[in-house]
């Protein structure tokens, strides 16, 4: 399943790429892509939406407090 989020609070494209690669390491997340300029996060996942929301927003918060994701 593909889920799309809006992701705000990222500092630079470099950080966006790093966060995306960390997110794709989460169990159940097959791939995660962040487009820094359009502020879009796209993930391929086998998880249900609520679990994915929670894991991804935790990962974002651990990366930097200011990052927020929203479906």
């Amino acid at each position, binding site marked *: 399943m593909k889920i799309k989020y809006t992701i705000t609070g990222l*500092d*630079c*494209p*470099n*950080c966006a*790429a*790093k966060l995306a690669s*960390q997110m794709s390491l989460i169990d159940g997340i097959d791939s995660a*892509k962040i*487009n*820094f*300029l*359009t*502020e*879009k996060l796209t993930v391929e996942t086998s998880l249900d939406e609520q679990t994915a929301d929670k894991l991804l927003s935790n990962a974002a918060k*651990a*990366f*930097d407090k200011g990052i927020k994701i929203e479906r």
Partner: protein
Amino acid sequence: MKRLFDFIKSEIGRIILSIVLFATAIVFERFINIYAGLGLYIAALLVSGGAVFVGAVRGILRRDLLDEKFLMSIASIGAMIVGEWSEGVAVMLFFLVGETFEHFAVRRSRSSIRALMDICPDEACLLTDNGEEIVDSEDVEVGSIIVIRPGERVPLDSIVTLGSADVDTSSMTGESIPISVSVGSEVSAGYIVKNGVLQAKTIRIAEESAAARILSLVENANENKSREESFITKFSRFYTPIVVIIAILVAILPPIFGLRTLNDSIYTALTFLVISCPCALVISVPMAFFGGIGGAASRGILFKGGNVFSKVAKVESVAFDKTGTITNGNFAISNVECFGVDKESLLSYVASTESASNHPIAECLKNASKTKITYNSATERPGEGIIADFSGTICAVGNARLMSEIGVDAIDSKNAGARVYVAINNTLSGIITISDEVKPEAGSAIQKLRALGVKRTYILSGDREENVKLVAEKVGVDKAEFALTPEQKYERLEEIIKSSRSTMYIGDGINDSPSLARADVGVAMGSLGQDSAIEAADMVVMTDNLSKLPESVLIARKTINISWQNIIFALGTKSLILILGLFGLANMWLAVFADVGVAVLAILNSMRALRAPKMK
């Protein structure tokens, strides 16, 4: 009180507070008490760099030592330790100022692109049994009746059911001349009604509208990275570690050989670290492409990715489909010759046979007669025509090739235009001539392409020799290839592609998908409704105006230029300051400029890509 606190927490607030602390610290250090000065320096450092230190610690926790925040923290703390207090604070302060500018620039370009893309209204005025009701566009079902008043944007793709008006289609097509619509016309979400009130029946839900499709194309465009973008990503992967290793060597080696003091060499190494942040590079190049994509979209040209820009910029050969691309595809019957049957029944057979076909020519033949006969079976032969069986009566409608295949002698006609032969039960029964107009701008568009450095232009057509040659002469292409089957067309295109640096193929997308996909740049024209064409093409032009092609070359060149300017400027400045730093000539201030200053300038330069150049 809370507002004051929020202000202090904001970027601007922190900058002001730390500048005040910094200034006081300098005064205290010089004239009053050196230790009080140090205390104030540390306070200024914490105000400006607190968040950066926290970020650096987080970086360490996730074992990411080459993080920008980590490098900045090391540099400023290092400078404090070697006794360069004011510089240690200055690093953080400058970094904060630079970041603020950077965020501002990023926000501005995001919002200008968003404004460009904000073409679908969120609300629609729905006509219900109880009168008008304002609802979310997303909730409107297909087949609902909506009302659009002067000055409003059409919220959903729909067909006008009442009223007439002039509409401005520029946000969708880049065309500034308004078009008139009346009952039966299709209007797309994003059109602006200039005068008159329209009632219209919706034909698509909001998220499937043409405008929504454009948006998602633009948003996803960045996934197809250009060579320039990939270059920069790969580069930064090597660049930062190399600079860090050099910095360590610079710190250790000179003191070992007794050339410099440890303090001096550490200071040099720290400036190195600050310069080494790759963010300026990583941000500015994609930003240029993003701007280019947005700017082109405002002209009705969609680039499907950064990688398309470089191919369009160096296009050398351009091949056109003829029908519907160079000509406007409005066929009309210009002459009917009958042999042994009356005109009425000939046309009735033709119209009934063609009702099974999707070929553009079929459209006008379908309407040739109102008396339709039901066929039992029909087979379409690509590039030849169609054969239908009317309970025993076999009617073949197609070109001369189809006739020779079924053993009918296709005699020539003296009338100009495309010939459609009709054979009923294997006897030639009629010749219908059909003509199509060349688009008025075709000739000048091809001339402009040539002026932009396109070396060879072709028409690849399945049509007859004299028709293709006539059109080719009119518009001035170098080479006209005619009577090609779809397979031959593809093979010819392949040969052209092999012989040139970059080849553009322009088709209307109806049966061109393989060629669109094969060309370096496949351009689908005026076919936003055609999913297969959009899928296969690299570039989509929303109108069928050929002058968009030279315009796209200009836009692509400008965008590529800007991205290279950024690469060269950022790399040049950084390496210059790195070399100065190596000889101890660059201080922290210069180093911070090399990082954030360069990033801000590169972003501002990228914004120029948003303004698409116009062809004169």
